[in-house]
């Protein structure tokens, strides 16, 4: 603290009652400690990712040198060049992109439609359907892997895109609930007015309810995409051949091809995480919103 700042703090303090001064003092000391601890914690949390990225930018011989080099001495993109052109990572990228996008479109579409019906329409079985959706939270999806696998192999879908995509469509019953909540809060007056103008249910859905909730559709689509991209267990089981691997499976299951090369292994990992990291950094607020929603906090 500079002398001037200290002096001005002193004059402010002098104008205060003793109790106020005491309050300010506790805030300063304890608050400062908490803030410093938080910042140190954040650095600790971010460091492994930073360290991984820095490692990928070093030549392989520098990576295994003793000592901690926080910045590469000889900057190189060799690891990435090798991973991109020397492995099947391009194919795995395409696989991940295609399956994750399909899962996202599928989940959002069926959830929006079902959410609309449950929210706005009266039909027999509505309560039963709602009850089933709520109950489905209880069933751990990994417990279903055996029968998902049996089912998919009966349809001859193992090692196909469809076989990887289909079981993942039931991973998110919560999206239906979120859609229902948002459709519930669309004012009834809009609905009445559109109905008087002769709109049917499909026009109401596509022209009124869906456009009024684009924000929530975006948020749910992003979070579903991240979830599907990150899926490990099912794609790991449903694809047994290297060309069908998702990137999350490929980078952990195929290493023998280039032995223990730290920069390359990490480079492939960075590339695998890059799309979701970029999506998160661009749509940070949407992602946070979607996470709150999936946890049942509306805000």
């Amino acid at each position, binding site marked *: 603290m500079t002398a001037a700042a200290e002096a001005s703090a002193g004059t402010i303090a002098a104008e205060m009652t003793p109790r106020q001064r005491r309050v300010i003092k506790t805030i300063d000391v304890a608050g400062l400690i908490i803030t410093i601890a938080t910042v140190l914690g954040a650095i600790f949390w971010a460091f492994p990712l930073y*360290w991984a990225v820095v490692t990928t930018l070093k030549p392989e011989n520098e990576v295994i040198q003793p000592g901690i080099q926080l910045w590469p001495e000889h900057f190189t993109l060799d690891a990435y060049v090798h991973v991109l052109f020397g492995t099947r990572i391009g194919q795995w990228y395409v696989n991940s992109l295609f399956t994750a996008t399909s899962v996202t479109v599928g989940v959002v579409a069926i959830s929006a439609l079902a959410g609309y*019906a449950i929210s706005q329409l009266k*039909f027999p079985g509505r309560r039963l359907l709602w009850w089933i959706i709520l109950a489905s939270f209880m069933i751990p999806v990994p417990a279903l892997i055996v029968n998902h696998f049996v*089912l998919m192999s009966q349809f001859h879908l193992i090692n196909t895109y469809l076989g990887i995509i289909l079981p993942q469509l039931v991973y998110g019953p919560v999206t239906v609930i979120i859609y229902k909540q948002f459709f519930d809060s669309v004012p009834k007056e809009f609905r009445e007015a559109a109905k008087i103008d002769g709109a049917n249910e499909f026009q109401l859905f596509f022209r009124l309810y869906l456009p009024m909730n684009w924000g929530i559709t975006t948020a749910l689509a992003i979070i579903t995409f991240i979830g599907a991209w990150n899926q490990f267990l099912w794609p790991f089981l449903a694809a047994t051949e290297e060309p069908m691997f998702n990137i999350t499976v490929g980078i952990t299951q195929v290493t023998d091809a280039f032995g223990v090369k730290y920069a390359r292994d990490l480079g492939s990992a960075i590339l695998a995480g890059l799309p*979701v990291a970029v999506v998160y950094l661009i749509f940070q607020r949407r992602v946070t919103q979607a996470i709150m929603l999936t946890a049942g906090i509306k805000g």
Partner: protein
Amino acid sequence: MASTTDTTAAPEIRLNKHRIDYSEWLAAGIFVLPFVAIYAVLFIYPTVQMILLSLQDAPLIGAGKWNGIDNYIRLFKDRLFSVAVWNTVYFVLLSVIPSTILGLLIALGVNRLKGWAQSVILACFFLPNILPVSVVYRVWNWMFDSQFGILQYPIHFFVGANVPVFRTLPLFMPTVAFITIWWGIGFNVLLFIAGLRNISPDIYESASLDGATRWQQFTRITWPLIWPVTVLVLTIQLILQFKIFDQIYLFGNGGRSDATMGLVQLIYRDAFQKNQGGYGATVAFALFAIIVIFSVLQYQLLRARGEK
């Protein structure tokens, strides 16, 4: 499925509206059809099949023989099953409770910050959360690498030698739990921050005017008001961590050791590696039962405590 409720739902609608809108039924049918079809085929059917398969002596693919509750009897005698249950519960304890407490502490710290500083700090804690498990595995495998890992410097300093943590049994679960906390804490922090923002600043203001210390403010205001969020975080984390597979499998080198076996991994082992679909389904049903029992119990217990 729908037909069973026809009789119960119809009179209710007739009472309310004095008529049945069949066109609304038709529209609703079209709207819910994709959802119902997919959930019936890929959720309800496999769940029923899991229960039926658990009562059979069956390979993964192909016909089986009914054998009643033999699989369940075998389950209780299976030493590997008790190892898997214990490992799973151990992992849940090591990861759920610390990540909830730490999540609250971090949220309290982050919540004090303002503007861009808050966004940056929050992003540091949250970024690992959106990464795939494979990235987490590669990053921490490198951090702990027994030859060149950066964490071997402090380990060497304290222990006097490099330690291959993932191949040292007593260290395996705590380390994987620690990495899981690093990975997943952002989620908890977000929920706690949302909870903290819902507490009106007026309450703190009047409390500090009454001379309440920071600690008193935390124990008398923050903690009781944040309790429902704590219950939510604990429940979500509990259900999530009971399903542990990916990390144990990856860090355990493809699950080669029985000593680090978890429940989902046992399903994988029995059904896929040993080709015993029936017994695998039995383990799967046990996992299902354990998760239901634990989450209902925990929710009831924690809610009851919160109401006092």
